[in-house]
């Protein structure tokens, strides 16, 4: 039976219907057409589906959509300023060439945002540990780490 879920996504109230066995990732992508979060592994290993749920970084493939009743979700679509332009982390990824195919990028940016929201000036070591749950098969990680450190200043 479909359940109605009321939540807040990217600061907008959102209601959707879902089956109990649908993941948050599936609802974001298939029901709400928010396709920024990617499905890499669908089992919690790759971080491509990373979103921020009630202020905490999570893998949206490992969250049931029904669990988000009353919750606040931030996805890659919601981080750029409404007035236009990019979020500083997005800008830094572009300037530092921190992406190639781009599949991992929304996840890395959300994970980086969660880190910088908590710890605005992490060391390189802290950045690398924090991002260890995000996999990238293209860049070799170095440019991603440099981009995050560029924002951290």
């Amino acid at each position: 039976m479909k359940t109605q879920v009321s939540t807040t996504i990217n600061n907008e109230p959102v209601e959707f219907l879902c089956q109990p066995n649908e993941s948050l990732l599936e609802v974001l992508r298939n029901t709400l057409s928010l396709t920024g979060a990617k499905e890499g592994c669908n089992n919690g290993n790759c971080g491509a589906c990373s979103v921020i749920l009630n202020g905490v970084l999570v893998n949206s493939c490992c969250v049931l959509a029904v669990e988000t009743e009353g919750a606040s979700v931030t996805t890659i679509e919601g981080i750029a300023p409404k007035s236009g332009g990019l979020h500083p982390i997005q800008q830094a990824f572009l300037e530092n060439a921190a992406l190639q195919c781009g599949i991992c990028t929304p996840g890395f940016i959300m994970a980086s945002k969660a880190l910088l929201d908590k710890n605005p000036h992490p060391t390189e070591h802290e950045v690398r540990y924090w991002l260890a749950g995000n996999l990238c098969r293209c860049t070799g990680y170095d440019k991603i780490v440099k981009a995050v450190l560029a924002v951290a200043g």
Partner: protein
Amino acid sequence: MYIAFMQAFDYVNATTIEQAVAVMYREGDMAKPLAGGTDIIVQLREGRKNAKVVVNVKNIPRLAGLDWAPGGALTIGAATPMHLIYGNAPIAAAFPGLMDAFSLVGGTAIQGRASLGGNLCTASPAGDTIPALIAHNAVCVIAGTSGWREVEVEKFCVSPGRNALQRGELLVEIRIPANATGAQKFGAAYLRFIPRNEMDIAVASAGVSVVLEGGKIVKARVALGAVGPTPIVAIEAEKALIGAAVDDAKAVAAAMAAASTAATPISDMRGTLAQRKHLAGIMTKRALESAISRAN
């Protein structure tokens, strides 16, 4: 068109222990409690476990949160995620031997959801929190339809993926005793061997604790992970340490040998039987050194 890959199930958002236990009694093994979901959602999706109903237990107040006063026992609600435990500065400072383990379960996004009770209930032979909890003499507090009971963490895992919970039982909280008072000093550490720096599953691990009094080890716990079907208590290693001076190299060597002997690993892609037995000793020694230094 949306294609559901995960088997269909009903969802109950439980708000009381009684409600959760009633559903779990009614449905038996086909009811699965959901806390962080980082194991159960993947298991259901991959068909490794089956459910008719998934019971969200993390909105039950007693299952979420921490209770501790300096010098006292620590109670951790079973559904409390790792990041809230190691992110609690006073508790993290008071229980470094637990934080060793809690801070390396998965990556950041997993730690945002994965609960302590979930890691225990998954009962993986390599579950990082379990040897650390055993070293701290932790106890599982369990609610059921016919009352409550307590099970020591060292008796909670019964085989790979199987725990001691019976039909209709729910792990409510994990209680860690104060472990030392007065002139006694407690120290504990958890260490695992993995071939990379982060985000891996232990090849072998050890949770060790000591209680020191007057430069002597008066109590010791040695629990091994990933070297048997369940975490293993190396009783002979504990015996080798009790009564020894903290700098007694012979006792340490005896404990290492006893830990290697107690280990009953398999060979798999993560490591061979011989390597794991060897590592059980090495991890025991290094965790012991750290536990002793923390007790001082």
